[in-house]
């Protein structure tokens, strides 16, 4: 450790902007790494860091209380908290973070972990109707839980990504009639591709979901009291509903960095493989770090393409790398090499993934059967294995993580337990990346670290 880093570790001030999973884990990792200086966590919500995955599952069904999702914390964190006060600006030259209440926090090093928020319904008047809800935080969950407890005639879930599918699953668990609309040909198409998405579609229908793919909701209509009652679809049908859950993916919380001079924009905050943030000229900064959903960084395992990973494990592992690199000199820095992994529980099935399925062009079921559905599917790109997805076969995933790390040949050459009789290579059927999707959770954000402005090309024959 250089003397400069020694002094920083003893007396420095770290500000962590974002008091969620990544922010908390970074704070813990800084202390574990010997940082004894001042530590401040800034959060826009008034709550201590809490865990989000239970919100769309146990909390919605009433199995767990919203406030019970507070994350365990190590003792001796010795942090100062600024909760309920969002950061509104970062001054690179003066090394200060500006908060919404006017306070300015000077820092020696800062971690940007401001995450994402739910993409709102595009029509603001319709979005303001009672019963139109997006789900991201604790307060959203309380609103949705209360709407569901009121016994709606029908719940509409707009968008069949993971969040939308889990909400639909929770609704069916409560015995509520649910319609799910999805613009793509299947649920989970952006995350897993249409071929595996077909299995998810069958699951939804078996659980009594009225699933409608290839359609879009064109408008939501309220009653005189301003509560949503009807949804109009682009195939001409009208649905009678009492709740509309908008599950159209996430937007990155980077607006507060607009004038900071950092390489931050709608795709996220660009950083190097060691979590150090690029400025707007593509020059790496020394004292600004990023981690979690908001960060996009070049991944050595996937051609150094910049990826933004909206995963629980990414928040933890990237926060640990950022914290390590904050307190260590350049010869001891660590790259972020974590193979992306995530899970989703829906309709009684555990879906797990490793690697980057949207990079896959082809898919093959190597163990089990999609009919049950209990299987392992591998995704391949140009002859190498880039991802694995399991349905109720989580125990095998570690083996395939190893295959992905080694860039193993695709299709695989080895034999497997419970190998299907014919191992047919299928097209993965990911939607055109030019079309905005419901949120694949791994967003391929290109190769340029400096790209701040970007234009979404009009969808080819697409619709909202």
């Amino acid at each position: 450790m250089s003397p400069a880093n020694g002094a920083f570790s003893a007396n420095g001030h770290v500000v962590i902007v974002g008091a969620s999973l990544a922010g908390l884990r970074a704070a813990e990792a800084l202390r574990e790494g010997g940082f004894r200086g001042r530590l401040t966590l800034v959060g826009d919500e008034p709550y201590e860091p809490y865990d989000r995955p239970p919100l769309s599952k146990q909390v919605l069904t009433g199995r767990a209380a919203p406030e019970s999702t507070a994350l365990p914390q190590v003792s001796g964190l010795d942090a100062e908290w600024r909760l309920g006060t969002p950061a509104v600006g970062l001054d690179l030259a003066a090394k200060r973070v500006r908060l919404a209440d006017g306070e300015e926090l000077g820092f020696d090093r800062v971690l940007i972990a401001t995450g994402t928020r739910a993409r709102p319904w595009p029509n603001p008047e319709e979005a303001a109707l009672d019963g139109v809800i997006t789900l991201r935080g604790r307060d959203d969950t309380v609103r949705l839980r209360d709407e569901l407890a009121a016994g709606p005639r029908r719940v509409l879930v707009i968008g069949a990504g993971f969040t939308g599918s889990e909400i639909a699953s929770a609704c069916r668990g409560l015995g509520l009639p649910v319609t799910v609309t999805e613009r793509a040909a299947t649920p989970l198409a952006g995350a897993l591709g249409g071929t595996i998405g077909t299995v998810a579609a069958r699951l939804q229908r078996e659980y009594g979901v009225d699933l409608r793919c290839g359609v879009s909701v064109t408008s939501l209509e309220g009653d005189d009291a301003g509560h949503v009652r009807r949804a109009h679809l682009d195939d001409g049908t009208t649905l009678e509903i009492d709740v509309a859950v908008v599950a159209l993916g996430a937007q990155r919380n980077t607006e507060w960095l607009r004038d900071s001079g950092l390489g931050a924009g709608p795709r996220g905050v660009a950083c190097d493989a060691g979590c150090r943030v690029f400025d707007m000229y593509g020059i790496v900064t020394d004292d600004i770090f990023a981690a979690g959903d908001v960060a996009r960084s070049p991944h050595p395992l996937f051609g150094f393409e910049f990826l933004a990973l909206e995963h629980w494990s990414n928040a933890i592992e990237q926060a640990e790398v950022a914290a390590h690199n904050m307190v260590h000199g350049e010869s001891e820095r660590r790259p972020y090499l974590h193979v992306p992994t995530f899970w989703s529980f829906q309709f009684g099935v555990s879906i797990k993934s490793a690697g980057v399925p949207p990079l896959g062009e082809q898919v093959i079921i190597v163990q089990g059967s999609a009919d049950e559905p209990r299987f392992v599917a591998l995704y391949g790109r140009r002859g190498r294995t880039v991802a694995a997805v399991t349905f109720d076969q989580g125990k095998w995933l570690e083996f395939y993580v190893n295959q992905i790390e080694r860039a193993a040949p695709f299709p695989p050459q080895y034999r497997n337990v419970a190998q299907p009789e014919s191992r047919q290579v299928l097209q993965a059927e990911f939607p055109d990346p030019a079309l905005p999707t419901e949120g694949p959770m791994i967003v391929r954000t290109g190769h340029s670290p400096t790209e701040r402005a970007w234009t979404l090309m009009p969808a080819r024959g697409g619709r909202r």
Partner: protein
Amino acid sequence: MTMRIVVDLNRCQGYGQCVFLAPGVFELHGEEALMYDPGPDEEQLIPVVRAAAACPVQAIRVERPGEQA
């Protein structure tokens, strides 16, 4: 006073030891999907600590009541 629990569900493989040891806190939906109460009452402390210790993949993290500084 409640405790706080978080399970690393990437690591969890649905062995179900926790479901046997602390049935009021952990439950399986289907074969492998683990649902749990992240903030159970203090009377669940001993079952939960046993469940965390017995987890074959050590995926359960528990903060006991009053443990946090």
